[in-house]
């Protein structure tokens, strides 16, 4: 059952991701991406990281994708501009294919040392919070500065001068 769930979620992830990049309609792309994020959230839950799963949904589905949808709805009066030239398309598929095969081959060669079937860790809110506000307190505070600057920058950009 676990295997089945993993396969179902993975299939959903891959299919929706493909749909993101292949849909002609940007709104479909956004909806597919939301679906993709939900399936990834499912993976997170099954990897015993429920907090991240929920945060993932809140941040991505709740905020980021709304922003995308917003922009698309406001901006896309004309139809989508479509894909690049077929030469570039074939080149891209080729290059990415080579990349993927190479990475998988590198994994098979054992260049990447992977643990197998280890015990999982409890991704509870309190333990994660302890790591986040203990070991990573300073990066966390710095990220708030990043946010602040982003807010200021976006407001400045958004203003019609």
């Amino acid at each position, binding site marked *: 059952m676990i295997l089945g769930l993993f396969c179902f979620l993975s299939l959903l992830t891959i299919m929706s991701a493909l749909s993101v990049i292949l849909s002609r*309609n940007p*709104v479909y792309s956004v*909806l597919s991406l*939301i679906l993709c994020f939900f399936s990834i959230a499912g993976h997170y839950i099954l990897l015993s990281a*429920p*907090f991240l799963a*929920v*945060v993932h*949904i*809140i941040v991505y*589905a*709740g*905020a980021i994708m*709304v922003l995308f*949808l*917003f922009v698309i*709805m*406001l901006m896309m009066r004309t139809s989508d501009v479509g894909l690049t030239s077929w030469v570039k398309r074939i080149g891209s598929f080729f290059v990415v294919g080579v990349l993927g095969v190479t990475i998988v081959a590198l994994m098979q060669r054992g260049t990447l040392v992977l643990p197998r079937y280890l015990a999982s860790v409890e991704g*509870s*809110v309190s333990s994660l919070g302890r790591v986040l506000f203990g070991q990573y307190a300073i990066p966390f505070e710095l990220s708030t500065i990043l946010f602040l600057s982003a807010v200021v920058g976006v407001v400045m950009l958004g203003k019609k001068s």
Partner: protein
Amino acid sequence: MLDLFFIIQKLILVSAVLAITLVIAMYTTYAERKLAAFFQDRVGPNRAGPFGILQPLADGLKFMFKEAFIPANANKFLFVLGPSISMIAACMACGVIPWGSSLMIMGHEVPLQIADLNVGVLYLFGVVSLGVYGIMIGGWASNNKYALLSTIRASSQMISYEIAMGIALIALTLSTGTLSLKEIVSLQHGGHWNVWVQPLGFIIFIICAFAETNRMPFDLPECETELVGGYHTEYSGMQLGFYLFAEYINMFVSSTVMAALYFGGFNFPFLNSLGLSHNLVTLLGVGVFFAKIFALMFFFIWIRWTIPRFRYDQLMRLGWKVLMPLAIFNMLVTAVLILL
């Protein structure tokens, strides 16, 4: 065998919760009309059945049998998807509400909660943030500029008020120390309601809840005087019914959440001093919980017929310049008090 019992138990619970939710949503429409009539010194619906008690059923039947018209230039798939998402998102929140403590059935302890997530509060928050998609997709798919404008209003409004709501929730979780709804409710045992601890947080939360459910005085997205019919201008039949229904379900869920988070949920004073059996106490608790929910829903309706609509810029100013600073202040004060 344990798994089977577990699945059956959960299935029954889910069906029950869904059924109750839908029925309550149905009768909320009736209640609203009756109360509106009361406020406005009218009679209200009184033809279908005694006191018009069958009126919601009649309305539902009418919705079902009317033609679900889809405009020619609309995106048909998304047009249908919109109300469905609204409905689903509204119902999803019920999954983590602890309706009662637990019942002892055949030696098994059956908790009256579909899922006790340890991140229940966050889950609620996430589900609430999904509600906006139904409106956005439906509004955009209608290919109607009023619907689109309403969509933009709705999404801006919901995202803006989500922030204040989230910060109010953070303050609440700071004081309770857990994200699990069941634990939050249990901690309010014996009259220690969170509303006494977090009065400002509750006020912020309820204002945001009004905004999130697009109820008066924040019903700008369906502001008839400006936008024809809001985001569901082009809708008819059961699809429109879904939207309207979703609104009432949202109202119900919001009241439920507030009752659970701030008013002690199924706890009531002198709970353990009555000397009743466990199951009886639980059932009594469920009753008390619903009483609290109905009181809050009455408040929703009461406000709707009392307070006029905000202007859009006023709404945004309230959200960003009043509620958010207040919520942050509330959070800081809470944090400092806990630290002390």
